[in-house]
């Protein structure tokens, strides 16, 4: 992307927008975080989040820069199925709805997804899970940090390192000041901005180009994009579906929200968020089909969205896209920072280094963990090690291996510790093998299938008989 000039805004305007939003998000982080003195207030927004903020935070976190930038790119490369396949990412959110309810019921005082694996499967499975989860969390953080730098550079010409440093610094600062409350509060505003922005852009494309002209020109120049039987796109669809489910089921980003939502909110919030998320890749993506009709020459496929916007709306369109992309980046980056730092704090610091740490001590350490995580991410983002897409596909092999151990662990007494550990290890190994031997588009699929088989076989030959009340640490502490 660096090799071609794709800047649709001048850097002065870029700086102005960055400065304006930095002030707003940081002030809001401070404002919402000033009363968060207890650990539960900071880590889990007081465990009392209502429906509106619950739906918005699930939506905003799942709308990343990938959704807003890669949806048009996929439409340009894989056509109709590219958009539809991407929109199936919402299935993970909807399937997580009953899990969120179950998690809240079984673990009303839980903090992280690591807590669940530790209490349900024991130390070995917990450590394997932590490696997978932290690898994924840090991988996603790096990919988002890099995406921030790359996109800011591509849209405004601002240097990659400067752009990346600024977006990371903003997100670290307001997450550090306000914890999950700041993350969820800003997510609500960011969701509204993203939705209004992509609707405005889609409406303009329909108004200025129209479906007939769009269809006719694509049919003439790239008819395969309108073909419902495009094989590569169908493979993408299934892999993307499983990857999304794996990402959501295991990641502490979604578990921390299940713990943070008020009683009775989790199921409805995730279901509604999934329904509202589903059309976003279609609305954001179909504008790419206007490129032949607009006579646009696209130098880099991942810049198709902004370039169509700039062509349709001029400077206004470019500013709109920049704000939408910036909001999408921040809404995911802050959530991931908060959730990964919770995992480091609860499962590494408290779980391994300071088992006797009090909640007050943990509250103090929480901010340092966020800062440390921000610095580590920044350092790893500096050299731009790999492409965003490659890194994310690579993690698919890891996360898909956790789907069945988590689902079986939440619902089936028979699911055993050894079965879960082996399922995660063998699923990851086979997923990685298929990634290199076959291709990225089968890594998650192979990993999930192998993991499922191991969990099922172990349940059949060595069944456990788990006591559900062992998951509620508050009850366990009282009785012991």
């Amino acid at each position, binding site marked *: 992307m660096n090799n071609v000039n794709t800047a649709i805004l001048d850097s002065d305007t870029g700086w102005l927008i960055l400065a304006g939003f930095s002030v707003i998000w940081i002030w809001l982080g401070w404002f919402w975080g000033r009363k968060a003195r207890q650990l539960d207030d900071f880590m889990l*927004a*007081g465990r*009392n*989040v*209502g*429906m*509106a*903020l619950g*739906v*918005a935070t699930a*939506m905003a976190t799942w709308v990343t820069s990938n959704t807003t930038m890669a949806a048009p790119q996929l439409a340009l490369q894989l056509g*109709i199925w590219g958009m539809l396949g991407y*929109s199936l990412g919402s299935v993970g959110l909807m399937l997580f709805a009953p899990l969120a309810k179950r998690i809240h019921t079984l673990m009303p005082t839980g903090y992280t997804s690591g807590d669940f694996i530790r209490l349900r499967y024991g130390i070995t499975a917990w450590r394997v899970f932590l490696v997978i989860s932290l690898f994924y969390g840090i991988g996603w953080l790096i990919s988002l940090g890099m995406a921030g730098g790359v996109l800011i550079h591509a849209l405004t010409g601002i240097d990659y390192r400067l752009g990346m440093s600024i977006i990371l610094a903003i997100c670290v600062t307001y997450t550090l000041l306000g914890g999950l*409350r700041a993350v*969820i509060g800003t997510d*609500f505003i960011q*969701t*509204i901005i993203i*939705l*209004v922005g*992509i*609707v405005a852009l*889609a*409406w303009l494309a*329909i108004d200025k180009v129209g*479906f*007939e002209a*769009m*269809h*006719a020109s694509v*049919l003439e120049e790239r*008819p395969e994009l*309108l*073909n*419902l*039987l495009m094989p590569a796109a169908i493979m993408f669809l299934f892999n993307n579906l499983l990857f999304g489910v794996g990402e959501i089921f295991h990641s502490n980003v979604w578990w921390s929200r299940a713990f943070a939502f*008020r009683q009775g909110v989790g199921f409805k919030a995730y279901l*509604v968020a999934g*329904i*509202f998320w*589903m*059309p*976003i890749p*279609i*609305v954001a993506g*179909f504008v790419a*089909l206007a490129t032949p009709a607009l006579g646009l020459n696209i130098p880099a496929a991942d810049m198709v969205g902004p370039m169509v916007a700039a062509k349709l709306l001029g400077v206004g369109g470019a500013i709109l896209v920049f704000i939408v992309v910036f909001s999408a980046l921040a809404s995911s980056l802050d959530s991931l920072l908060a959730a990964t730092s919770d995992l480091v704090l609860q499962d590494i610091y408290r779980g391994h280094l300071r088992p006797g740490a009090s909640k007050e001590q943990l509250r103090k350490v929480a901010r340092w963990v966020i800062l440390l995580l921000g610095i580590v991410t920044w350092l790893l983002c500096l050299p731009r090690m790999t492409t965003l897409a490659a890194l994310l596909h690579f993690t698919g092999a890891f996360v898909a291996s956790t789907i069945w151990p988590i689902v079986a662990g939440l619902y089936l007494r028979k699911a055993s510790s050894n079965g879960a550990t082996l399922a995660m290890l063998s699923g990851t190994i086979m997923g990685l093998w298929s990634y290199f031997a076959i291709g990225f588009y089968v890594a998650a699929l192979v990993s999930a299938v192998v993991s499922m088989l191991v969990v099922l076989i172990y349940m059949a030959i060595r069944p456990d008989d788990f006591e559900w009340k062992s998951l509620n640490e508050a009850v366990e502490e009282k009785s012991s």
Partner: protein
Amino acid sequence: MIVSSGFLSVMVMLALLITVAAPIVLIVLWFMDWKKGRLW
């Protein structure tokens, strides 16, 4: 199996309709939670 422009327009308009409804529903839910003091 090439889709028609009619199929394309119905698919996109349906998606657009839900996406337009989303911020409206979110703001209504926000006011409902806010009135009951149940935002967070």
